[in-house]
């Protein structure tokens, strides 16, 4: 009796899953309408992954990436529908090459010492081995930073990204106090930075919805939302020579570093993925894979960085 019930529950569940799958396809269709106008069927079939992990075949026209022009009409506060961006950082691969830092700085038009992504030397315990620890804004799912903002200038989007509206921010810096990871930086108008931003006014924010060079406001890593929407990997991911950083979509259950692609759930399971300071309850969207069986031995940094005021 009981078994039967369980069986029927499972069947219901499967049915639900199927429905969800169809809904996703319908979602793709909808997105197609929004972004690409009326596109003819190409007849070419591609395999896509549904939210519940099944592979289905659809016409390639249905999965076209949204066109740039249409993307601009996006409400930056709401995010890209049908996406949930996620990042995985494999600590076993990081050799402190700092290419992510430089890539990010040139992408966002930021000069050192401002770093949206930092690489820190960490050592968890006295006898524990030191390791390199790349750190971004974690785009927390329960973000303490957006909660405290008095004017809604920093907000959580449906695609998981925590964005900043630099036209709204009043510069109270409360969000910086609230972020336990010190992920935010403030634009104090460092003269070199100001000059640089002005010079590169045209090509600033190649990747971002909101300007990050507004003096007197907060900025931070934002997972490069516009590139991400176009399927272009964030700079830190593509610049890393060691493939340390993986980026992807939680709904697709896939992450890639540009060369290798993994099933997210399997990767986290196999490599015991964790999030930094889980106990704070911030629910970061960045997972770490522990530094076991490393690709490189740990070497102290020989150079000092960012010493210039």
């Amino acid at each position, binding site marked *: 009796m009981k078994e039967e019930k369980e069986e029927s529950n499972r069947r219901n569940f499967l049915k639900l899953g199927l429905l969800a799958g169809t809904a996703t396809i319908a979602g793709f269709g909808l997105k197609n309408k929004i972004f690409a106008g009326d596109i003819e069927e190409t007849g070419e079939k591609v395999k896509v992954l549904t939210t519940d992990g099944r592979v289905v075949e659809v016409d390639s026209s249905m999965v076209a990436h949204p066109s740039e022009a249409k993307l601009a009409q996006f409400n930056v506060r709401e995010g890209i529908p049908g996406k949930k961006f996620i990042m995985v950082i494999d600590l076993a691969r990081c050799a402190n090459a700092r290419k992510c830092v430089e890539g990010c700085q040139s992408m966002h038009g930021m000069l050192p010492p401002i770093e949206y992504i930092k690489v820190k030397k960490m050592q968890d315990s006295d006898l524990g081995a030191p390791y390199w620890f790349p750190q971004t804004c974690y785009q927390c799912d329960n973000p303490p930073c957006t909660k405290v*903002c008095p004017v*809604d200038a920093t907000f959580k989007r449906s695609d998981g990204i925590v964005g900043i509206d630099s036209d709204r921010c009043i510069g109270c*810096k*409360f969000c910086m106090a*609230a972020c*336990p990871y*010190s992920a935010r930086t403030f634009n*104090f108008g460092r003269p070199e930075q100001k000059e640089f931003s002005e010079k590169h006014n045209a090509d600033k924010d190649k990747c971002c919805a909101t300007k990050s060079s507004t003096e007197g406001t907060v900025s931070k890593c934002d997972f490069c939302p516009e590139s991400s929407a176009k399927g272009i990997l964030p700079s830190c991911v593509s610049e890393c020579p060691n493939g340390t950083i993986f980026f992807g979509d939680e709904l697709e259950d896939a992450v890639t570093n540009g060369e290798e692609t993994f099933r997210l759930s399997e990767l986290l399971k196999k490599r015991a993925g964790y999030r*930094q300071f889980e106990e704070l309850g911030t629910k970061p969207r960045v997972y770490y894979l522990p530094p076991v069986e490393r690709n490189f031995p740990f070497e102290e940094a020989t150079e000092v960085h960012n010493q210039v*005021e």
Partner: protein
Amino acid sequence: MSEKIINEEKTTYETFTQEEYMVMKGDLLRPVQHIGKWGKIWIGFLIAVCLAGVYAYYIQETKSKYVTVSLRDYTMWGVYISNFVFFVALSLIGVLMSAVLKLTHFEWYRPLSRIAEVIAVAAIMLAGVSIVAAMGRPDRLHYLLLHGRIQSPIVWDIIVILTYVTTSIILLFIPMIPSMSTCKNHLTGKPKWQMKMYDILSFGWEGTPAQWKSLKKSVKILTVLVIPLGVSIHTVTAWLFATTLRSEWDSTNFGAYFVSGAFLLGVAGMIVAISVIRKTYKLENYLTPMHFDKLGRALVMMSFIYIYFNINEYLVPAYKMSGLHANHLINLFVGEEALFYWSVVLFGMVIPATLPLIPAVRKPLPLTIIAFGVVIAAWFKRYLIVIPGLAHPYLPIQDVPASWKHYTPSLIEMTIVAATFAAMLLIVTIFSRFFPIISVWEVAEGKLEGKDEIINYK
């Protein structure tokens, strides 16, 4: 209850003569009637410091803040925010030294209440100025109205502070109505506009029994109202810190800790204020050694309460020394800030808790010195609450320029802070030059009703 009534009957109808009243009125109106040379120099000096602050602010806003201000990404809140907390704390002086004493029928509050209230109003205004100085985009201040969201503790703070300011100003001016008519009738040789101002502010006061009745009633309501408001402004200010996940502020004790600190500061501030006022305005007959004696006792009590909360705040986490707190606490106890920290403990808590236990110390001069120490220590205490912890976040600070690790306020910042102090003193000074700083009728009434406690105090 019945005992109290008998007591009141004994004291209520002790009269004081018309002559006594005229002398008193003369004394209390004197600072308004005549401003001496030193009075003018003092006002000029304060205005000069304020102008220096305005100029410093102009530089800060027109030049790059990276150059003018020492704030960086880790220490993003600096001396402006700690100054803000200090002024909010100081503004609780009105609650303690006026409202609480009034409602608990301590007759000696009478000459103190207006002094306390004007300090409270000035302090809370300067708290607002400090916050604006700290903002990255002061030009967007109005966004708080346009886009304000109720879930942000900043918005709570703004709401309670605005309510408190309004209530305090009303509470300051309503009991002044009879004083205004006294000014109108008894001051001579003042410019026309000033007399006109007294006329307007006395709201047609004639001193009829009905007018007295409604005046007293409204004062009472406001007095009751101002206590929870005062406690909330400082509690919410504490929550600005306690609602974050930072270990140095992550405390359920924070609201009470801040309020108790504010009460200690309030008593100390009052002692300093009356000792200056009685000397400069020759009001020794009204602000008497009795007041110092009482305030000295209050100082001891408030210090002990504050020490109690400090033990909860520092020693309990220190006993555990969890990894989250260790960095910050060790830095305070034996590290870089140790000297600073222990001086604040000594001058801000230990001395005021112990020395005034000796009756000889509760005399005006020694007590004023102690209280002055408490006020200075209180300012630095706010600094120690806000700033050092920021340099010890959960994730280590690495690869940054030296100025990002250690915060030392810049000249511009210190000038602006100095200007906020000057502005506060200026408001109080100007006020006392236009309005009697001690309420004539309240003291007169006190002499009628509570003559025993005020006059015959041994």
